[in-house]
């Protein structure tokens, strides 16, 4: 069965320190993987996507993610957090056709 697990419901970092949001997936197929960000009272915005090209994917706002097939992981990172990064982040797996699975979300807090 296909699934996606975001390993932390909340992550708190200080401004200027690195961000790591963890995502593991389970899929019988070669999946397409995405990260989205949702700011309060807004819709989800696409940060980046992996679709079987380069395993290190760069996205908007300095975020990047690395696809590791052996670990079935797609963790999101950013070298230096900014206050504006405080939001909820969703890892998403597209396993084919219209089958899209959303993770439960990780809320990122950034302390000044």
């Amino acid at each position, binding site marked *: 069965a296909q699934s996606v697990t975001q390993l932390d419901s909340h992550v708190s970092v200080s401004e200027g320190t690195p961000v790591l949001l963890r995502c593991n997936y389970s899929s019988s197929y070669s999946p397409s993987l*995405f990260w989205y960000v949702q700011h309060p009272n*807004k819709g*989800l915005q696409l940060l980046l996507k992996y679709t079987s090209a380069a395993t290190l994917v760069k996205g908007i706002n300095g975020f990047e993610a690395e696809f590791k097939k052996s670990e079935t992981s797609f963790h999101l990172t950013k070298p230096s957090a900014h206050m504006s990064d405080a939001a909820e982040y*969703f890892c998403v797996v597209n396993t084919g*056709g219209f089958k899209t699975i959303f993770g439960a979300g990780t809320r990122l807090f950034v302390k000044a």
Partner: protein
Amino acid sequence: DAGITQSPRHKVTETGTPVTLRCHQTENHRYMYWYRQDPGHGLRLIHYSYGVKDTDKGEVSDGYSVSRSKTEDFLLTLESATSSQTSVYFCAIKKGEDYGYTFGSGTRLTVV
């Protein structure tokens, strides 16, 4: 959000009344989706469309119907609103299977 608008942004309605939410896109994308977002449940797919007059059910379709008579418009109707349908509803569009979603800003619906 660029290329996709939802209306209304907020609505309060009474139990038992029909409600229609509208999603309008200017991107000419083939695929359109309706999701609901609830605390503890994440995003859940209600209905989707893969072309004019071509729609199908998602995982939580009971009590909802959709119509797509034009490429740009996808309507979600709550046939007889119930309190369990109080939620934030998001419309999303997608260019193709391996592309990410573009989400609307959402409609906050309260059923009293």
